[in-house]
């Protein structure tokens, strides 16, 4: 780590590994007048808070998954996002501070991805909020990753792609004026109805580590990766898009029945894969879903929940219903997702 000159050790557009988070927040603040950044506490807020009496949505997590979560702060989605160090959950004092700021008198929903660190830090944050404020906090823990076996003896499934769809849909429910219980119920419904699976063609490089988290030979890929550069469930030979799509879609469909309901499908890039490849993948995924008799009502193709510069993608399928589709279509104005306003 060179600390005296601004020369990075790796092929990244950064100043120093230690300043990536602060520097990127400075960029967010400079680029988006619709957002307010609390640099000391590393929290991104809407510049204009929502109306009093509406439930507020707070999320957060390690940095390195952009646009998640800061890119989803705005009308129709989150009220604030707490940013942790790269791949590291934010700390409870951030959650406490953000909870106090965003509460509009109707309570705050914490949206937490199921990682030990995130769960514990949000838990302490909620405990502090309960002890220090009168704010009602509800929590939803997203755990949609079918690559990991669901078990009560382990840390369980990771929270990945469904988080994006959940923040959009639940954001709309809160914007409509539903109460905290109802908003939390929608959040639980979305979490229970969404499944994801990811593949990595390359590792990512954590700036402070300075080299790729794992080495992947030229002819292999990792199936069942999350969004933190951790190795996947298994290493398999590199394959074409159609075969990769099959390896992602099959475990999703094996885990839940998606027929007989409208679905929302996300083909998500992990940060280092260009859009053209995501479209190639989406074509294959759409074919497989169609062949399985699944109706895709809405879709999203792009980089929404990433793992720094990792090359690869993930597929998320959400079993929706009329209400969820309506909430999905509701106006949203964030830097990462926008329509209707």
């Amino acid at each position, binding site marked *: 780590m060179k600390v005296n000159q601004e020369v990075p050790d790796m092929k990244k557009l950064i100043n120093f590994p230690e300043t990536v988070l602060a520097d990127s927040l400075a960029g967010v603040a400079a680029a988006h007048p619709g957002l307010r950044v609390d640099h000391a506490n590393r929290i991104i807020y809407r510049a204009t808070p929502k109306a009093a009496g509406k439930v507020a949505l707070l999320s957060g997590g390690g940095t390195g998954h952009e646009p998640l979560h800061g890119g989803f702060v705005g009308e129709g989605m989150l009220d604030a996002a707490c940013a942790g160090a790269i791949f590291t959950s934010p700390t409870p004092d951030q959650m406490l501070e953000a909870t106090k700021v965003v509460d509009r008198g109707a309570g705050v929903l914490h949206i937490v991805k199921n990682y*030990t660190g995130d769960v514990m830090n949000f838990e302490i944050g909620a405990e502090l909020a309960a002890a220090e404020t009168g704010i009602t906090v509800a929590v939803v823990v997203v755990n949609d990753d079918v690559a990991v076996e669901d078990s009560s003896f382990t840390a369980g499934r990771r929270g990945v792609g469904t988080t994006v769809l959940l923040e959009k849909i639940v954001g709309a429910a809160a914007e409509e004026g539903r109460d905290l219980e109802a908003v939390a119920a929608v959040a639980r419904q979305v979490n229970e109805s969404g499944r994801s699976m990811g593949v990595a063609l390359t590792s990512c490089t954590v700036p402070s580590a300075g080299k790729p988290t794992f080495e992947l030979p030229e002819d292999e890929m990792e199936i069942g990766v999350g969004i933190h550069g951790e190795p996947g469930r298994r290493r398999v030979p590199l394959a074409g898009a159609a075969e990769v799509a099959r390896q992602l879609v099959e475990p999703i469909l094996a885990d839940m029945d998606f027929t007989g309901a409208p679905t929302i499908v996300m083909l998500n890039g992990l940060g280092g894969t260009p859009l053209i490849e995501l479209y190639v993948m989406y074509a294959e995924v759409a074919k497989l879903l169609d062949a399985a008799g699944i109706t895709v009502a809405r879709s999203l193709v792009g980089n929404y929940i990433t793992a720094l510069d990792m090359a690869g993608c993930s597929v998320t399928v959400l079993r929706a219903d009329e209400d969820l589709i309506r909430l999905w279509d509701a106006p949203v104005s964030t830097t990462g997702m926008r329509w209707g306003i």
Partner: protein
Amino acid sequence: MSNDTITVDQLTDWLTRFRDLVTEQVSYLTELDSAIGDADHGSNMTRGMGAVVEKIHASPAGTVDELFKGAGMTLVTSVGGASGPLYGTFFLRIGTTAGPRTSLDAPGLAAALRAGLGGVVARGKAEAGDKTMFDVLSPALAAFDAAVDVSSDLSTAAHAAYFAAQTGRDATRALLARKGRASYLGERSIGHIDPGAASTALLFQALVETLGEE
């Protein structure tokens, strides 16, 4: 030199020495975390313990509880991730258990450490064999307690704990992870030392080095 008690200053040295060790071993810890986690355990511990020592230097603690509550709170608010709340709770509980004393004897430190372990379990729900820092803390404290039963010398107890910690750390290699990020790897988590287990072993190494020879 009598080692029947450990003073606040020595405990401060312990934390400082722990800071030095995780900083020296930052690459090693991150390397371990790269294999079965997300490559940040080294930087998490360095950032956290760096903040702890900085805070102690700015306002030195007068009592054991002041020292460890401060350290715990600093870890909780500066690390994030899994290690922040776990190490943070560990130190917080040590502080509350030790209370406003200016030194601890061997049974006193043993009790405080055990309370710390209780905090880790309360937060993380880890059990023996889950391949976490628990698998170092638990045997290390058992060895510490056993040593304290037969001798009042803290250095002896620390050595025993460190020896057990190293064994516990190395034993995590063969385990299949059931908690923390490594659990996502299933079978592939086998064959790698758990990063949190490794940093916890450094905690006992720091204690040994602080107390000096038996």
